[in-house]
Each structure stands twice: as C-alpha cells, then as structure tokens.
C-alpha cells in the first residue's frame, strides 16, 4: 500500500540554486572530497562506500562542521555565515540530533519557529507518519525518532532538503510517504540524499565519492 502526502506540498515562493565547489573536509588522518554540485531543482544522490565522507560533506554543506576547502552557496549566500540561509536548508542527520527531552510536536515547532515560520503546522505530516505528538524523543524508538527528525527537517518548507541515510530506518509506511513527498518536492526543491542499497527513488544526478 502506498501512502502519498497527506496534503498538497506547499510550493516555495522561490526556487533556490545550490552551488558546491571543491568542498573538502580534512581530518588528521583522512581527507574527504572534493565535492562539486550545482543544481536548482532535482534530486541528487551521493554514493560511496563507508568512510568515503558522505556524512562529513553533507554536514559541511549544512554548516554543521567547518569545511577545510571549497565553497558552499545557496543563492549566493554561504550557510556558514548566514543564519537565514541555514534556515532554508532542512537536514535529517544520520544520527538523531534533536534534543531528547522535547516531544515530537515541540521538536517541529522549535524548528519552524527558528526558521521564522511560526504559522507552519506539521500536525498533518506527523499524523501521516503515524507519530504521537506528545511522545518525548528520548522515549521514542529508533524509527519513530527518525520520522520525527523528518518532520522537523520539513518544518517551514525549506528549499533544500538533505537526507543522510534517512530511508534506511523507516518502516514501509514512512518510506512510502517520504518517497512520495520527495517525488513532488524534487520539481522545485533541491534534494540531496545518501542511501546504501537499492534506492526506492530514482535520482536526477548521482555523485560518487571514493
């Protein structure tokens, strides 16, 4: 059974262009990258073996870690220095990062407020993913927490969606919903995913690392 989005996806008032040039992250004994990307709408899948640096590079795009070389620009603005630009990027990390003491509803409300979209309502998405709103994140199962991170990443309808191995931990219902959502979103959003194994969604571009 396939579940589509529970409501029409809100169209962003604008599309955005993501430019990544020569992005590298250096560690004491390793160096990942370079990564080059340039797209304004569509779905990019980043492939590579474990340790190739997929997560590090995605984190560097979201400004979660400092890049060692290269540039990242969303409509010409660097997420590392521009808070508003960071607000236009929705990110689902490989490991849960939202504070565990928040409930699921509080988590997406927090992210929506931080993105300056306090009227955004994630209830329908949360219900479509079969999540209770009053469950604390640190009491949720791994899959439920991952779904909660998805709702929080979608808060405010950011123009760039970055999903790090998100499809892997979802149940069939959650995976079907997310795939259907991304199929709609790719027409006017930049969607960047990583996924090992058979990917349930066909990318527009594939970038292979390592």
């Amino acid at each position, binding site marked *: 059974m396939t579940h589509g989005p529970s409501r029409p996806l809100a169209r962003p008032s604008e599309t955005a262009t993501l430019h990544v040039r020569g992005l590298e992250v250096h560690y004491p004994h390793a160096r990942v990258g370079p990564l080059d990307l340039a797209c304004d709408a569509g779905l990019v899948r980043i492939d590579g073996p474990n340790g190739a640096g997929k997560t590090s590079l995605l*984190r560097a795009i*979201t*400004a*979660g*870690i*400092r890049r060692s070389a290269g540039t990242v620009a969303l409509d010409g603005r660097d997420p590392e220095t521009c*808070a*508003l*630009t*960071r*607000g*236009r*990027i929705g*990110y689902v*990390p490989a490991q849960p*990062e*939202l*504070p565990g*003491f*928040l*409930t699921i*509803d*509080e988590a997406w*409300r*927090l992210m*929506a*407020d*931080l*993105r*300056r979209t*306090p*009227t955004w309502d994630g209830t329908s998405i949360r219900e479509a993913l079969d999540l209770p709103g*009053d469950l*604390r994140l*640190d*009491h949720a199962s791994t899959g439920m927490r991952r779904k909660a991170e998805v709702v929080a990443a979608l808060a405010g309808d950011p123009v760039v969606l970055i999903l790090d191995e998100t499809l892997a931990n979802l149940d069939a219902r959650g995976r079907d919903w997310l795939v259907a959502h991304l199929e709609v979103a790719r027409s006017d959003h930049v969607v960047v995913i990583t996924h090992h194994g058979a990917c349930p969604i066909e990318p527009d571009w594939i970038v292979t690392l390592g």
Partner: protein
Amino acid sequence: MLPVLFRATVPPALARTMPGLIALLFAVSQVSAVVDIPALAHELQARSTLVRAAVAVGIALFGAASAGPILRPIVWSPRLAFVWRLPLTDARLLFGLLPALAVGALPAVALALLLGPVATIGIGATTALASAAWIARSPWAGVLVALSAATALPGGLLVGPLALVLAGRVGRALRNARPLGGGSPRTVWVRGGPVRALVQRDLLALWRTWPATVVAVPVAVFALTLFVQRALHASWSPAAIGTGSVIAVGVFGALPAVALGAIAHVERGAQLARVLPVGPIERVAALLCSGGLAIGPAVAGVIVGGTANGTLGGVRVVLLGFAFSALAVRTLVARDSQRGREDLVSHGIAASVFLTVIAAASPLGTFAVAGLGLAATASSWARLR
C-alpha cells in the same frame, strides 16, 4: 563483576562531582572565615523544632541536589544499560553503585564533616536516601525523602537501621528507574520567533533534565542563607540581611553558571548548534533570557541584599552577574561541536565558581573578574561570528 561496575560508574561520577566539590570547598572556606560553624551547629541544636526541621530539610535537599543529578545520568546512561541486565541481587547491585553514590555525595559529606561526626553520619544517610529517591522516582521516593529529613534531625539516627533495611528496595527502585516525563508532558509551546523558541527549549531542558536541581537548589539556598544570616546577626536588620546576602553570593553565586552550563548540555554533541538558523545576537539573547528566568528568584534576592549593603555591594552584584553570564556563554561557545568536548562545561563552571569566590573576597577581585568577563564576551563574540 563489581570491579566492572566500579570502573563504569565512578569516573563519570567523579567528573561530574568535581566542579561542585570545588565550589563547596571554596564556599565553605569563605563562610568559615566569618562564621564559627561548629558553634553555630551547637547553637542550632538548641533552637525550636521548627527551625531544626527547616535546616534538616534544607540539608536533605542539598544532598539530593548534589548527588541526585550526578547519579541519575549514570544510572540512566545507555552505556550502562548492561548493568540492569546483570544477574545481581538488589543488595549487590546497590553495593556496586555505592562508590558512585559516595562520589556524588562528596559535597554534602564535606559540609557534614564541618558540622561534626554525628552530623556526618546523618547527612551521609540523608544524602544517599534523598538522592536515591530523586533518581529512582519510584513510589518509594516520598517515603525516602521524608526519611532523609528525619535522619538529619537530632536523634534521627535511629532511622539509620531502617534505612539499611530499605537499601535493597532502593536498589530495586534504581534498577527499575524510569526516565522522567514518561507520560504526556503538560507544557504549552508558545509559537513565535527564534529567541522565544530557544528560550522555551532551554527552560524545558532545565525542567525535564534537572528537575531535582530546579526544585531543590532554590529551597536549599533559601534555608542555608537564613542559616548564615541568623548566625551572623541576632536581629533581622537591613545590614544583617545585606551581609548575609553578599555571603550568599559567594556561596551560591555559581547558580547562574550552573544553570547556563546545564543549558549548554542541551547542545551536547550536536552539530545542531551550528546548523540552527540563528545568528550570534539571537543565541546570546536567548541564553541570557533563559539564564535570567532560570535563576530569577535567586538573582533578585542577591540584588536586593547587595543593594542593601551599599553601593559597593550593588556594583559587585552587577559585575558578578555579568562575569557569570560571560563565562557561561564563553563556555558554551567554546564547545567544539566536531569533537564534543563536554568537559568544557564543567571546567567553565568550576572556573566561574573559583573566580566568584575571589571576587566576593575583595573589591579588587571583583574588578579582576569583571575584566575576565569582558575578555570572555569579546572572545565569545569572535567565535560566534
């Protein structure tokens, strides 16, 4: 198996206890310079039952506040989940956790040692029981807290054997401990801008992660401040209140840093802090609002006391408040999100406490600390940008 328990529980307990212990030792040295604590304890024994009960409850809550928050994360740590699956009896389990419990109770025990051997035993039992009750959050919690207060009262040591009998039950309660807020948290999220969102998040962090501290510390502060003021002056004159309040700054002035340090833990391990779509002004504003709300009552009392003590007292309070905030913010932004250096928070708190005591001891120290606060602010700003 017990050595494994020791290795697993004692180091994290020690790491969490040290800042509190340092704070207490400095604070006690500060107070003991102007108060004859053993004489005070003796005088207290002659007071009315109501006064003794109030002090006993204050000490019990102090013990719970110092040991409970230290032990709870250890008890609930996912890394120690294996402990609860071990085929151990309740008594052996409790025995395995005793070293960590003892480390967690060090601050209260240090205070007890200053008050005399009888009080040491009483406060030791008090601390253990009260902290176990806070940690376990079991139906036994109410009984244990009541028992803790009774143990701290003169003659209450007769309750000790009963406490030992209950030790096995305490162990079971610990093993069956459930995370707080298992039900539906009854809070309302007020929608708004980024600063309001961050403040709500931080206050929820304090309330849901350190509920015992939030509840117990202000009560304990109030009781012990009364204790000091009463000892210093026979009357409740404005001068007495002012002097007592300034001493309270030296003793409990670390509260703002502790609160902000606790908030800093929220961003623990999270690149989230860097990913959040908020700028440095909003982050600092939210942090100051959260810290101010969390410690509002204590700060208000200190400001009133400091002002009553004259202009210098008021200036000191303002400068100290600034220094606390600056150091706490610096501690927060110094955290290396890529390496998760959590120790910076506890070190920052310890440094704040150390500098506070120096500042409370001399006017020159006050201005020195304020200078450090200014440097910390500049450094924070540079880092946040």
